[in-house]
């Protein structure tokens, strides 16, 4: 989605270059290999051989973290496209390509993780066939949206490929229709990120009243946007440190204003929702209330850090605030999908097995390894005059 802004002058984006087989890359590759061995067991012996999943907790971290949280990590491209192309804020343009790349891997691997978790994965394509469709299913909508959005991200990222391999004719043609994909790239995440919240409405009394609400879709949309912003800040600062590039603090500072607004909105609506539902007292009792408090402490300390205007221009404070808000979003989603959930009948327990955790680690390691490879080999990052020549 590079297209615009004077790219015909060439070299607005540049591959970072450098060695691919660095230590971080090799560590990631090793983690992916470990996950591969565990997945072999999972596919030959069944889900129990690799996980602690059971009929009380049929969804574990492979859904809650790999898909529900992983796809929120993938919202970088969504929020930046929204700012840049829908709200016409050109100053965010340097963030577009890295954000779209992060989204591509976030969503691509969330899709892959679904195949790890599906008990009858060989039938997965039934989701796409109209004669199997069950239109009341929120999951059907999520599945179709995520699949389509992943394709949209491929198209949005295509200009970087086409530029790298000098396929200019196709790139020019693509640029003419890219607005359709940009519009879809904003619509689809709005739909499926909110629906990820709607998905848990049906579990009813099994989700603690601290989280069970008809407002779940609103909260999931807000955390998607918030985590999208936070991951952009996070990734920008990490890239600047690791690749010795100048900090993008001025543009990140503008993002932090928005993070402040979205996080405040989330906190206020959470309390309004609890009050309106008459469940505010739940905060002060029960084993799960600690998790609610932790979620709120992370969220409020993240946004409090951004209230002094000076902090919004300090990369350290920005990074810390983004980390706190990201953690708050992660915990909120984990609370809704796992921690706040109690099966209805019988004593069931779930804590992820080591193997299950290693598969999740492997999925994220693959994401990082591919990201490192792509930014080194393809024009993703905005061109700067590198200090290290």
């Amino acid at each position, binding site marked *: 989605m590079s297209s615009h802004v004077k790219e015909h002058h060439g070299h607005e984006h540049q591959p970072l270059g450098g060695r691919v087989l660095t230590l971080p890359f090799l560590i990631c590759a090793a983690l992916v290999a470990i996950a591969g061995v565990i997945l072999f067991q999972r596919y030959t012996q069944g*889900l129990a051989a690799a996980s602690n999943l059971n009929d009380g907790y049929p969804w574990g971290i492979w859904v809650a973290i790999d898909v529900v949280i992983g796809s929120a990590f993938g919202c970088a491209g969504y929020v930046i496209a929204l700012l840049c192309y*829908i709200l*016409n804020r050109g100053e965010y343009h340097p963030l577009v390509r890295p954000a779209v790349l992060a989204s591509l891997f976030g969503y691509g691997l969330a899709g892959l993780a679904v195949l790890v978790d599906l008990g009858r994965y060989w039938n997965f394509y039934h989701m796409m066939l109209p004669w199997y469709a069950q239109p009341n*299913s929120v999951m059907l909508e999520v599945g179709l949206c995520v699949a389509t959005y992943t394709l949209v991200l491929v198209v949005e990222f295509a200009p970087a490929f086409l530029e790298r391999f000098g396929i200019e004719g196709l790139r020019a043609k693509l640029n003419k229709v890219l607005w359709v994909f940009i519009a879809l790239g904003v619509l689809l995440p709005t739909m499926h990120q909110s629906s990820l919240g709607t998905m848990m409405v049906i579990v009813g009394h099994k989700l603690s009243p601290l989280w069970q609400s008809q407002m779940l*879709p609103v909260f999931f949309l807000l955390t998607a946007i918030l985590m999208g912003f936070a991951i952009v800040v996070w990734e920008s600062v990490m890239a600047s440190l690791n690749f010795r590039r100048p900090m993008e603090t001025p543009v990140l500072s503008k993002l932090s204003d928005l993070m402040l607004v979205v996080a*405040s909105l989330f906190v206020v609506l959470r309390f*309004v929702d609890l009050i309106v539902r008459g469940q505010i007292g739940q905060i002060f009792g029960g084993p799960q209330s600690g998790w609610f408090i932790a979620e709120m402490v992370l969220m409020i300390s993240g946004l409090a850090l951004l209230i002094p205007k000076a902090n919004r221009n300090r990369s350290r404070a920005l990074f810390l605030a983004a980390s706190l808000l990201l953690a708050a979003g992660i915990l909120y989603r984990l609370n809704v999908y796992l921690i706040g959930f109690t099966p209805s009948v019988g004593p069931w327990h779930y804590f992820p097995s080591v193997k299950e955790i290693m598969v999740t680690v492997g999925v994220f390691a693959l994401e990082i390894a591919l990201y490192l490879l792509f930014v080194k080999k393809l024009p993703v990052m905005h061109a700067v005059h590198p200090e290290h020549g």
Partner: protein
Amino acid sequence: MSKNMMSKNKTSVSRRGFLRNAVKGSAAAAAAACTTVVAAPPEANALVRPPKPLPPDAVGLLYDSTLCIGCKACVTACKEVNHMPPDVGPAQQGWNAGGGDQPIYDSPVELSARTLNVIKAYSHGTGATKDAAENGFAFIKRQCLHCADPSCVSVCPVSAMTKDAKTGIVNHDPSACIGCRYCVLSCPFGVPKYDYNDAFGEIKKCQLCKQQLAKNELPGCADVCPTGATLFGRTEDLKAEAKRRTALKVGEYAHFPRGDIAGKVGGPRSGHEKLVEAAYQTHIYGEKELGGTQCLAVSAVPFDKLNLPTNVPENGYPTLSEGIQHTLYAGMIAPATVFAGLAYLAHRNTKNHTDE
């Protein structure tokens, strides 16, 4: 509520212009939406769809805990009729390994992918008296309740879980199923199960022995029940029978039919007279729970003691989740409108960028 927040934002957000107004506008809208959505009563709430009624000829089971003697003939019959393998509870695994892969003794303690029907026992204190909550014991039968408005059918993305329009039986088709286990997660009664020890595991649940009913034979459990504790029939007939029983007084003799309450399916059978020894709870489990279920239960011991969820609303949860879904996506009008707006802006703005 949002007033405080607005003013806070006004001071804390230095950026002016469109963006801030847009965010503020949506904040106010979201706050208003939150209040209306959550505060509105169900009948006036646009985000709740009406409940689904039972088909008039829906069939089910009436389980009477006071008649159950815990013989588990129904558990065995269910296994035979549905060709289900034996299942060994965790406490029995030490001594019941059997020869080779097969355990000798079928001893399920809970529903599982190998057990579609199970009898569980409640006991308290000395456990001396049958059907007493204090120092007593009681039985409960667990199997699919065949809801009027089932969560499992609502959530299934590929129509593997379906509700028969005439009999109301909730069926599962493994050839369509993708194994996402959303039905397992969503069932308010914890019924559908998946086989985690099989590389090609299936979802399993009671389908009310539809294959037996097709031959005009009774579901396995109702067929073998010696006391009529499990009675088959039209749900409406069973509901009337349940009301008759819950009105019985201790010390009364009453007639209890066996097999099919109408005496048609599986042939006529004689019932029996029995003294009512423990007072029935007035609550008929399944009459109102989650929009009603086709399988009902009556008992002398409160149902929460029998480990059945009693903190549930009178409408099924699909009325809430499908309410949201159908409001947002009615005729795909809202998404189409939003897409048109986004496409217009994206088209205009990318053009502007290129013109620069």
